């Protein structure tokens, strides 16, 4: 009895360990065979929510990819909210993946996490690279090298003021005069506010940043900006010291005092849903691939009209909007680049991913046009902006040839930022930058939402910024920028 129990106990333990070990080994074994066998599987990380018919989409896509270049893709989605936590772990641990949507593109490229694609892209993705406008190549250069295959999408961006059509129609408001500045919208906002005092006339929250015709080398949250009209020798300034920007803030403060901006704007983090009717005017970003308000209307599922606020501008952040990088740990760098080329040049593959299953979600009408069918559902396809070359996507039949012509012309004609391709190295002024951020955190939301008077606050902010070391940071960055301009002449 005694020994019997002992044997039972020990054998149970042994079984458990063996089972565990088997689990591990099995995985390892399958991984090895994949790497050495003929049919390679490339591991690819993508940001966003997995489409609900993911298996179906990938089955169709993988069949095509295998036919063309002999590999299959294991596409793994990482949710929007998890992205910032998971991707650094994957990169820092040196895990072996092949392709990823770029996370902190410049910083990680400088660290050596991504493979240098300058030559690889010329060799294995020449088709696509030849189609890609110059701005994408220039905007993605890090220290003279290219580390990404960018998605050709919204090459320029423009801030617009978007109006809720149901209110515009209901109260017969004239929004045609709104053009190019916040100030031009004052009249129509006031009229609306009289009629509907309870609905947010200008719907903004804590994260709102006032816009102006400037480019921001470190992003809009930092007080460093370059005016677009600076020809030849761009100068880094503090946007809060700029007259035009100050005037915008003054306008916003006026609005706030009149009740056109919600009183809790500086603390509100919940936002106003695009598809709701809790707002009258909001600020949105648009690009050429939005075909005016078409995409915005689709997302909102209601009629909207936008009026321009800033110029159409090609910036570094637009060029780096959706980058795909190849990991330096990847064992299949060539195949990875080859796949990215295929994804961006093969209309059948890309349209199948971005619009869903052909025949079920859409059907082709005409050469490069498609019609959406009833089977088209919002979460049964991938997103256009972060999947592949938007130029080879078929356009919906609701989009006219005129619009497509406009799109192509606007990409040609849009203004280019004087600092396109400039990536500031912040190593020398890291401490100053974090003190600057602390100062900004205290003032930014209040100033940008118009909650406090800019006349008295801005001088305060500027002196605090100087104390935090703004001058040092500006000097260092200006030096880098001068060098950059010289090198690019």
């Amino acid at each position, binding site marked *: 009895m*005694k020994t019997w*129990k*002992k044997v039972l*106990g020990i054998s149970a333990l042994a079984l458990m360990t063996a089972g*565990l070990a088997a*689990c*591990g080994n099995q*995985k*390892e074994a399958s*991984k090895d065979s994949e790497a050495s066998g003929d049919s390679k599987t490339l591991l690819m990380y993508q940001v*966003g*929510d*997995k489409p609900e018919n993911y298996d179906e989409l990938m089955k169709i896509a993988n069949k095509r990819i295998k036919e063309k270049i002999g590999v299959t893709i294991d596409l*793994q*989605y990482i*949710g*929007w*909210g*998890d992205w910032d*936590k*998971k991707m650094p*772990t994957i990169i*820092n*641990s*040196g*895990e072996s993946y092949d392709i990823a949507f770029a996370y902190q593109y410049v910083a990680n490229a400088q660290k050596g996490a991504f493979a240098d694609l300058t030559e690889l892209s010329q060799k294995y993705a020449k088709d696509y690279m030849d189609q890609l406008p110059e701005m994408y190549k220039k905007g993605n250069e890090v220290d003279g090298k290219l580390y990404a295959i960018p998605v050709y*999408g*919204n090459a320029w*961006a423009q801030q617009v003021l978007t109006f809720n059509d149901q209110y515009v129609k209901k109260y017969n408001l004239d929004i045609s005069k709104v053009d190019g500045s916040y100030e031009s919208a004052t009249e129509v906002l006031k009229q609306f506010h009289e009629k509907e005092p309870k609905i947010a006339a200008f719907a903004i*929250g804590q*994260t*709102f*940043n006032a816009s102006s015709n400037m480019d921001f080398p470190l992003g809009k949250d930092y007080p460093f900006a370059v005016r677009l009209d600076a020809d030849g020798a761009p100068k880094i300034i503090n946007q809060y010291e700029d007259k035009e920007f100050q005037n915008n803030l003054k306008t916003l403060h006026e609005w706030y005092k009149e009740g056109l901006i919600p009183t809790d704007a500086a603390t509100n*983090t*919940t*936002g*106003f849903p*695009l598809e709701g009717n*809790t707002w009258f005017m*909001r*600020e*949105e*970003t*648009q*690009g050429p*691939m*939005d075909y005016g308000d078409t*995409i*915005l209307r*689709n*997302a*909102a599922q209601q009629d909207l009209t936008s009026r321009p606020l800033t110029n159409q501008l090609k910036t570094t952040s637009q060029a780096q909007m959706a980058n795909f990088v190849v990991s330096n740990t990847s064992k299949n760098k060539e195949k990875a680049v080859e796949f990215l080329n295929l994804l961006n040049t093969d209309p059948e593959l890309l349209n199948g991913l971005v619009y869903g299953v052909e025949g079920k979600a859409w059907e082709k009408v005409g050469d490069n046009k498609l019609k959406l069918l009833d089977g088209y559902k*919002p*979460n049964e396809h991938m*997103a*256009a*902006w*972060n999947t592949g070359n938007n130029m080879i996507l078929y356009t919906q039949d609701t989009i006219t040839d005129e619009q497509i012509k406009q799109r192509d012309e606007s990409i040609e004609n849009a203004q280019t930022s004087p600092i396109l391709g400039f990536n500031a190295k912040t190593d020398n002024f890291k401490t100053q930058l974090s003190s600057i951020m602390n100062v900004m955190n205290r003032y930014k939301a209040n100033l940008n939402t118009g909650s406090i008077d800019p006349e008295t606050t801005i001088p305060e902010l500027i002196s605090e910024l100087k104390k935090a070391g703004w001058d040092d940071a500006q000097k260092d960055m200006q030096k880098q920028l001068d060098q950059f301009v010289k090198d690019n002449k």
Partner: protein
Amino acid sequence: MRKKEKVSKVEIRSFSPTVNIIFNIVIALFAISCVLPFIFVVMISLTEEHSLAELGYRFWPKEFSTAAYSYIFAGKMSTKIFRAFGVTIFVTVLGTVVNATMTSLYAYVISRSNFPFRRFFTLFALVTMLFTPGMVATYLIVSNMLYLKDTIWALILPMALGPFNILVMRTFFIKTVPDSIIESARIDGATELRIFTKIVLPLAVPGIATISLFAALGYWNDWFNALLYIQNDNLVPLQYLLMKIQSNLDFLARNAGMGAQIQGGLAALPSESARMAIVVVSTLPIALTYPFFQKYFVGGLTIGGVKE
């Protein structure tokens, strides 16, 4: 006589009634501050969605609705939620068993004074408590060395043994199991395994119940391991599902002005009351297990908390 009175006063260690009342009030306030938010959550989950938008949060909703619960149990997400619920229960049950087994085995061994390596193994456990390796190192071990990524074990094994529980159990064994009992069992001819299973374990039930509760709570509430190691939709636990919804919402709010293409790419998210209903569903079961552990809990924790 006077002397005697004085002595008895010293022996009775109680607070004066005023102090007692004050303490009671403090504790009551604390208890309310713990329970109130949860009641709030329950009430929001029972509120009609549009009245939530119009009137805001209320303790007594104007319009009751069970729509949020039918969303969970019959709606679009129900299969996902049920699956996640199953994963959570499985991980909690199996994980607690694994954790309790490993902890008590380890702790028992280092509690025995005649075990030659007890010092080493005690220190071995202590060191991991003082120096944590950090996330990247842990990630490397779990994903690249053990190949646990995308398996249910990735949710169980990283939390299977904790130094804190080991120390609690070790003290517990030392305090509640006298050496003489073990000795007498030895004299009667019991083997080590028999001593452990027949004598030590029954004596240590309160302690094991305590650490089991710790472990069960840990497993139930864990979402971080899932965040790091789980890609497969079928292995997502409930808490991670909640976290995902919440972080997607945060992302949306933080980047309100971003392009329409990006906004359109975000999947439709459940409404406020539905999210609160998921919170209720994910919290209630573990809260309900408390009363069953209660009777062991107080005794187990106090003995385990005493250091040698």
